[in-house]
């Protein structure tokens, strides 16, 4: 099978000059924006994207066109924000779009802003992507100079301002209300919804926040049409999706696939299977926050929103973490619980305290100081967190915790019985493979 036929979003990833305006324009770039403003109008753009079935690629999978439709009719000031805070462990797909194809992100952002009637668009890039902040800013400057943005753009027909905003190291800013508060100049602590940002967001005005990968698909959809987009993927999960794959497989990295692809085929044909000397143990399909699957479960599922839900997990961000047999699952969950504890914004008690408790109980187990009742205790702490907080960060910690405990219980039980964990694997991955 020719895997290149599915490359919509990644079609310029191999080019050395794809980030330059001239190269992008020569490739047909900015035609869709011109057509949107000059011919189609905002309503037709919204309809086309809605018809394409494009779903939010940040993790939630909510249909983008439907989200755009939540902006109240006749709203005077609307803001559009692009979530490039890519911080979900295992996820590094948006980074490729920003790096290799920044103008596709800018054009998609401009079309999306136009569709919802926004005059200001903020691209929020995580602070750790310092070099990408510079690259995207350069591209934005090029787009201004070429007359696609700013005063006088399109003969005054659509004058969008675009800000590249640099985050400063906070996972929580990937949550849309946290992101909006961050741009406001505050701590990135989320708000209770409703009101949803589409009604009351940045500065109390309607605000749409979309993921980088979502907006990057928009120019292609306008150029080729919703019908062409729906030729890829399944009925309910249309289109293509970037998966960023980490762990000891032969071809880690960012791969674009048609949604609905069987995992087995992706694993064998796209990833080339495990690296030499490694054996598949488990897979986290969509970023660290989704439930883990055993190797056997993974092999029976397919990569789309519905199949993964049926398998008891989620497609999430497409940040696929491949876990080899040599890994101790309790050690890995300790790493993850440290992360959620570190990143909890501290607003809600169940999350602030619960993430710390989970981390400390797992740590205690691994030190050989655990007790058999610790497993039930972990479950009870999870019960006191899930669904009880302002934002989904608590759930994001609970989903891996519960699923690791459920699917790899014997490893926890051995520790709870008083066995001390083996020392953390101190070998380099390449030593293990050689």
């Amino acid at each position, binding site marked *: 099978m020719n895997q290149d036929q599915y490359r919509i979003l990644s079609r310029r990833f191999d080019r050395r000059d794809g980030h330059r305006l001239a190269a992008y324009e020569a490739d047909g770039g900015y035609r869709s924006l011109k057509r949107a403003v000059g011919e189609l109008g905002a309503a037709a753009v919204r309809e086309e994207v809605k018809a394409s079935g494009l779903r939010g690629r940040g993790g939630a999978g909510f249909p983008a066109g439907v989200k755009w439709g939540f902006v109240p009719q006749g709203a005077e000031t609307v803001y559009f924000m692009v979530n490039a805070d890519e911080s979900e462990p295992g996820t590094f797909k948006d980074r490729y779009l920003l790096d290799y194809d920044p103008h596709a992100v800018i054009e998609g952002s401009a079309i999306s802003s136009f569709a919802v009637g926004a005059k200001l668009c903020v691209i929020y890039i995580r602070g750790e992507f310092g070099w990408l902040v510079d690259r995207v800013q350069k591209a934005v400057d090029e787009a201004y100079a070429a007359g696609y943005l700013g005063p006088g753009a399109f003969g005054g027909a659509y004058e969008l301002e675009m800000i590249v905003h640099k985050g400063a190291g906070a996972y929580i800013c990937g949550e849309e209300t946290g992101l909006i508060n961050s741009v406001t100049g505050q701590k990135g602590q989320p708000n209770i919804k409703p009101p949803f940002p589409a009604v009351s967001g940045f*500065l109390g005005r309607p605000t749409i926040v979309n993921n980088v990968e979502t907006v990057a698909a928009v120019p292609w959809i306008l150029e080729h049409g919703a019908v062409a987009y729906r030729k890829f993927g399944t009925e309910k999960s249309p289109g293509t999706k970037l998966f960023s794959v980490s*762990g000891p497989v032969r071809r880690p990295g960012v791969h674009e696939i048609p949604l609905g692809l069987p995992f087995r085929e992706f694993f064998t044909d796209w990833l080339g299977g495990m690296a030499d000397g490694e054996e598949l143990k488990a897979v986290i399909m969509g970023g660290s926050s989704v439930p883990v699957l055993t190797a056997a479960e993974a092999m029976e599922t397919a990569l789309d929103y519905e199949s993964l839900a049926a398998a008891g997990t989620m497609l999430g961000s497409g940040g696929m973490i491949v876990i080899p047999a040599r890994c101790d699952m309790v050690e890995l969950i300790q790493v*993850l619980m440290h992360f959620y504890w570190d990143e909890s914004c501290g607003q809600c008690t169940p999350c602030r305290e619960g993430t710390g408790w989970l981390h400390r109980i797992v740590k205690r187990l691994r030190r050989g100081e655990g007790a058999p009742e610790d497993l039930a205790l972990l479950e009870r702490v999870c019960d006191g967190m899930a669904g009880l907080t302002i934002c989904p960060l608590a759930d994001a910690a609970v989903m891996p915790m519960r699923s690791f405990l459920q699917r790899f219980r014997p490893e926890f039980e051995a520790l709870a019985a008083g066995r001390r964990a083996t020392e953390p694997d101190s070998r380099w991955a390449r030593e293990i493979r050689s």
Partner: protein
Amino acid sequence: MSVPVEDGTGFGLGEQDAARFAGILARYPTRRSALMPTLWLIQDRDGHISDAAVAWTAAQLELSEAKVREVVSFYAMYRDRPQARHVLQVCHNISCHIMGAQPLLAHLEGKLGVRRGETTPDGEFALEGVECLGACGMGPCLQLGKHLYEHLTPERADALVDGLRRGDPPRPDTDRDLEG
């Protein structure tokens, strides 16, 4: 818009940074929304955000010092005190852990003679473990300034430290050889 480059706080911006600050104020819709880029402007110049800088920023953006300070302390990348010349931030999250983050940290501890979280006595190097840097398929990795070093091995880690000591570090993996 005229921007005073100095005020009673004893902190001031040079002409170039004052122009940048004016640009930020012009781009962002409210003064408060200009806070994060203003803090970056200051930290990029000074390496950290001093008490005087907090007071200056609060005055400029018409915020209380507490509102500025809470933002400085909330975000992991803003620093409120001077830093080592080279801060090596090794990702210790799950994907890098699987590919060898712990041995990388241990190797750098040996190489630098400090433990994670510490700074070398000469103030040249600090070693930190940090959460996911978004280089999961290229781990283990570390962040240095605006860039990442990826696919690290003991040899590449040594070459980086030695190169930094000589003032001639290897090119970061994210500083790709692209035209322009």
